């Protein structure tokens, strides 16, 4: 097991390096100049030249990449072109917002999705099964920015149940330790802030959860159905085990593999969804950060963010693979 994890870790090195190289090259190949964008119509040739020199944008690409790589290896991701902020600091404040949003979405997707899937499978062909699978189908067939705007209009603007945008009311004081508001609020026993943060989290998390929720529900249902049809489950039932026990003891464990797969596979698409969700809900996360940075050609931010995203992606996939091995001893570590 340890060897397996070790081997997988080694395998991730070229992937992460590759991501770094690819993002560096395409970021620098993209036409448009950060200086020109910052100064807009009013940029003069002298200002542009002077700025390019100051930002060392005129290095040849391989030289620039090697310089960058040596900095990265020392844990230095550089500073933003736009405001001189350290990329590491920017990520430390922005990543937690996205993590909080994504975890909440994943939590909703897993809990509601698995529950729905199990119920639908156990009562196959019932009205609940039909309805929930119908809803699930719509859930991942909808443009999520459209859904987000409609949720705001309905639940925030019209009914006033939830805040319209943002992550925390400016009136709420909070001690920032990890920048995960919910965690910080719990650690400092600041229940007002906790409530406020959760209140703000509901709509964006629901928006972001729809696609994975629908997929998890469908996956749970289908894999559970398959397992329920297999001999050992029939045997267990025949031996007189109660249905609920059969489902939890035998079937769910086996059905969890494809479900975990889906969760792992969706980390990537979750971030794509986060870009749109964060824009609509004015959520100060990393999705918006990187898109704004691409449009502003703020290379250090783009590179740093994509690098960290890739690390997260690789780590989650590693976890997924390890949990397979744990859940299903038949999977070889080969």
């Amino acid at each position, binding site marked *: 097991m340890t060897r397996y994890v070790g081997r997988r870790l080694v395998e991730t090195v070229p992937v992460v390096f590759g991501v770094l190289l690819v993002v560096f090259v395409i970021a620098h190949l993209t*036409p*448009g*100049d*950060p200086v*020109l*964008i*910052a*100064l*807009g*119509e*009013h*940029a*003069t*040739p*002298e*200002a*542009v030249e*002077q*700025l390019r020199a*100051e*930002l060392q944008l005129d290095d040849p690409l391989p030289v620039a990449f090697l310089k960058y790589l040596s900095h990265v290896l020392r844990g230095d991701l550089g*500073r933003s072109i*736009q*405001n*001189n*902020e350290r990329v590491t600091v*920017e990520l430390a*404040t*922005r990543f937690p917002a996205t993590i909080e949003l994504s975890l909440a979405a994943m939590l909703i997707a897993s809990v509601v999705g698995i529950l729905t899937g199990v119920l639908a499978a156990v009562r196959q062909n019932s009205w609940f099964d039909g309805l929930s699978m119908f809803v699930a189908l719509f859930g991942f067939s909808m443009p999520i920015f459209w859904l987000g*705007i409609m949720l*705001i*209009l309905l639940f*925030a*603007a019209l009914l*006033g149940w939830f*805040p*319209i*945008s*943002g*992550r925390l009311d*400016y*009136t709420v004081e909070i001690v920032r330790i990890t920048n995960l508001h919910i965690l910080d609020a719990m650690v400092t026993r600041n229940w007002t802030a906790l409530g406020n943060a959760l209140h703000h989290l509901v709509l964006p998390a629901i928006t972001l959860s729809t696609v994975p929720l629908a997929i998890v529900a469908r996956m749970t249902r289908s894999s559970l159905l398959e397992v329920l049809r297999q001999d050992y489950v029939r045997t267990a039932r025949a031996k007189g085990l109660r249905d609920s026990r059969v489902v939890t003891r035998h079937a769910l464990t086996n059905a969890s593999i494809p479900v975990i797969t889906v969760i792992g596979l969706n980390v990537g698409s979750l971030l794509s969804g986060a870009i749109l969700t964060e*824009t*609509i*809900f*004015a959520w*100060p996360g990393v999705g*918006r*950060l990187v898109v704004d940075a691409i*449009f*502003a*050609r703020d290379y250090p931010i783009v590179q740093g963010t994509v690098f960290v995203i890739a690390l997260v992606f690789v780590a989650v996939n590693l976890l997924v693979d390890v949990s397979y091995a744990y859940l299903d001893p038949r999977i070889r570590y080969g």
Partner: protein
Amino acid sequence: MHHRFGRIVLPVLVIAGLLVAPVLTSGAPRTSWDAKACGRVGGTLVFGQAQDAVTLDPADATDGFSVNNTSNAFDTLVRFAANGTQVEPGLAESWKVSSDELVWTFKLRRGVRFHDGTPLDAKAVEFSFQRQLDKKHPYHHGVFEYAEFTLESVKSIEAVGADSVRFTLKASNAPFLAMLAMFSNAVSSPAAIRKYGKDYFKHPTGTGPFKFVEWVQKDHVTYEANKDYWAGRPCVDRLIIRGIPDNTVRLLEMEKGGIQIMDQTNPPDYARIRRNKDLVLFTGPGLNVGYLAMNVEKEPFNDVRVRRAVNHSVNKPVLVRAFYEGIGQPAKNPMPPTIWGYNDEVKAYEYNPEKAKQLLAEAGYPNGITTELWWPNRARPYLTQPQKIAEALQQQLAKGGIRAKLVTFEWGTYLSKARNGEHPMAILGWTGDNGDPDNFLYVLLDADNAKKGTASNIAFYKSGALHDLLIRAQRTSDQARRTALYRQAQEVIHNDAPWVPLVHAGRVAAYRKQVQNFFPHPLDIRWFYRVWIEK
């Protein structure tokens, strides 16, 4: 005047009036800001704009979102009036200028302290300017785009005693005082700059009416009232400036009272705001022009008849009505009527597609022409809804026999391609920097500014007659003569028709009814010092 004025993103000076004449003696101690009394003291004011600040270091800011922040936390030596572009005393309570207009001495207000408690003295002012100008300064942390331009004429800056600062200029420069009033020349605390080094941009420390408390990046900045402000404390206790990118969401927040003032109101929402009795929609004239430039170096636009045909095909009033909701006016000249020297006698090309077709036929295109219309995919003050305007133009042009394919790029790419002259026709615009006609006509249409790759004259229009007029106007300081020259210049431009001047967009702001004393400044900077909130 000089073309390098073009460097400023926000207009500097004078909207309807004149260049500020050099002030030879001191200004009055009281200013237009004090005249506005607080009806109530206290409360929290929340301002919502389309983006959070990028930096809070005033000297390093280039975007309006950051400037709206720094302008409330910092002071400049002299400042703009509360409702116009006249220059008034700020941190300097008076100033003197030598008879050759080369040496300016500013006398600082006594007893002013930075938010960190350190005193504002002549050394501090000197430090604050030197770190921008001197590339070897130990705290030259930033790009300071504006320093080169606003302080271009400055030879040296030195503290004289404890409370006077002397600026020596290389050459006399009439708008120097207005340059000093610009946001980038705000005075920062040297102690804070030394303490925070490269991170000063997130620990702004000035002398302004609002004291920085907290910045949650890409979300909001919190300020509290500076109760010891030298001109008296601001009316509200707290100021929050939030960034909310989505237009609809920002307006929803204001309708719910989550924010009290908002920027970048979307024209389709004007009617909704007007209907809402809790909200106020402010509109006023703007200092800008949106235009369609034809690349006169490319066929068929090298033929003036084709360019006139394009002009005859565009129905501007319809555009203003549909996409600016009437807040703005159709343009016939390259500069707005709010600037002196505007030639109202120029007769606009009337909307007449038949005449356009006829002109095209005369030019040898009986079947019309096929070309491209480039449009910038980013809303600008002069181009509130770029895509829709481009689509409508495309259809109007088609009726005049000009079949144009719509082409766009991201903002940065768009600008560099347009400056490189890759377009046949391109939509762009200009926001005035200083209220001088030169800042529009010379920058946007003179041959000097039509070099491929760096052109601000993206029509690549090179008229000897116009160049002669514009240079003569630059070299004289007699305003009557300049007016005559600029009026003539507008005639020349009109006849050669390198552009279709489209619109002068109005300036718009929306706020809740409880907000009092709020005047959207002509320079499009939001100052909240004297704003108060009704109970």
